[in-house]
């Protein structure tokens, strides 16, 4: 990114000058890296400003292109992040569709049989979370996708928590679309990816017009590009996309498998230590990406997070933009802990010490 700004800062796919050519080349090279990283075709990779932007773009695209009728159904799960849940809820209202929410079981997992019971002939769109951002559950998306494909529903996978945290194959999971953000996998903020199956890239008309997405424009009509670029209207986040490519290089060098192994070790240590504390209740999926939440008896999550912050521990308090599952735990929200390749057991010890300060402050 630094090199981009210092040596070849220019827009992509436009200029004929040297810096513009290099910017385009590096930008498209990042697309290649992303495609390889998530086992997709380059032509299926659409750059966005993040997961939420990817979800909005996708849902607007579906509204423009699918035949959605009164009484048709949209299936989401209790693990869904607001990035998909909210726009799908709004879509359901606009189109008079029915939004159905698949519950999680007591282990914070989506059960295949329960999920199957929600699917009907009227199901048009299905949204699945690959990894929960609240309880860390890894959802068996491949099985659930197979189930939803029996009635040809359009399947969306939110992989914001899993890409860069475990091997993810767009091809293998066979969803119609999958999205993720860069910032949860060592990349800069402001960049994300929407992977859209090749057949949809070719057949869908993009919902947004603008520069860089057309073959030609006349007074009468616009002919859009036939590639995934037709969904990237306007100047893209060039430096951030290049940064995402660098993050992929970094993760590949370190090996995602090693990151997983390390995260699991620290995660297990954290769960073990927290479960020893009488005033703490931990909530974590069994098959876990390295994310869990907890509540402290009689103390509001914001007070907990604030005191932990003072102890140098960075956690998030509240509903985590996933209110359905968070409210299952507590109406006050939760404190969420994320573990990744750079999290150490010493960090967890600092968390435990911070919790002792919470206990001291509130006389627990």
């Amino acid at each position: 990114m630094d090199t981009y700004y210092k040596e070849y800062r220019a827009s992509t796919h436009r200029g004929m000058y040297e810096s513009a050519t290099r910017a385009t080349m590096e930008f498209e090279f990042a697309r290649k890296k992303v495609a390889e990283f998530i086992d997709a075709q380059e032509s299926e990779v659409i750059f966005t400003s993040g997961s939420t932007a990817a979800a909005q773009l996708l849902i607007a695209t579906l509204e423009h292109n699918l035949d959605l009728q009164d009484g048709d159904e949209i299936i989401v799960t209790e693990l869904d992040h607001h990035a998909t849940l909210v726009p799908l809820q709004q879509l359901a209202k606009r189109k008079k569709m029915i939004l159905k929410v698949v519950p999680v079981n007591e282990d914070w997992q989506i059960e295949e049989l329960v999920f199957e019971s929600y699917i009907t002939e009227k199901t048009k769109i299905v949204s699945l979370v690959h990894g929960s951002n609240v309880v860390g559950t890894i959802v068996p998306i491949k099985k659930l996708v197979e189930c939803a494909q029996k009635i040809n529903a359009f399947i969306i996978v939110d992989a914001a928590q899993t890409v860069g945290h475990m091997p993810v194959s767009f091809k293998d999971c066979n969803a119609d679309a999958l999205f993720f953000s860069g910032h949860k996998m060592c990349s800069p903020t402001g960049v994300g990816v929407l992977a859209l199956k090749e057949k949809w890239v070719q057949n869908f008309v993009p919902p947004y017009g603008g520069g860089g997405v057309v073959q030609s424009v006349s007074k009468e009509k616009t002919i859009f590009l036939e590639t995934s670029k037709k969904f990237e209207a306007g100047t893209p986040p060039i430096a951030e996309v290049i940064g995402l490519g660098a993050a992929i290089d970094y993760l590949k060098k370190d090996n995602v498998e090693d990151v997983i192994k390390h995260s699991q070790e620290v995660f297990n240590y954290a769960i073990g230590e927290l479960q020893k504390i009488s005033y703490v209740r931990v909530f974590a999926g069994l098959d876990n990406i390295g994310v869990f939440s907890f509540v402290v008896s009689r103390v509001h999550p914001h007070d907990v997070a604030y005191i932990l912050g003072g102890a140098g521990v960075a956690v998030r308090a509240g509903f985590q933009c996933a209110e359905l599952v968070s409210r299952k735990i507590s109406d006050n929200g939760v404190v969420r802990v994320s573990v990744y390749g750079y999290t150490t057991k010493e960090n967890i010890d600092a968390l435990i010490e911070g919790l002792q300060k919470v206990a001291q402050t509130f006389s627990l």
Partner: protein
Amino acid sequence: MSQDLYSEFLLEHARLPQNNIALNNATCTTHVLNEGCADSLDLYLKIEKECVSEATFTGTLCALSTASSSLFTEFLKGKNIDELRLVTPGSLYNLLGVTIVESRTRCVLLCYEALQKALQTCFSLKN
């Protein structure tokens, strides 16, 4: 450092808040939300002869928000409408007795926001 915010005085108000009950005969009730954490607060005011005769609150609140609302509702009692209009965030900060860091201002000012809403919705016609 962060624990300085939780003075014994405020913690006592958080543990045993004053006026933490719904007021059935309130003449003005307002609801406010802290979007940052989804905490919510209902402020109940009973106005008699142009003065606040009773002020109470309920809500889903953190310790600071609870303590602040406890002190604030006590502070509002006996004030007339003109005096209510002169209340500022500074009035509330003075009651708390500690320096409030930026990240917690919404927590402690939620009850103040509820008062502002009450002044707009319940008392604007009496201007």
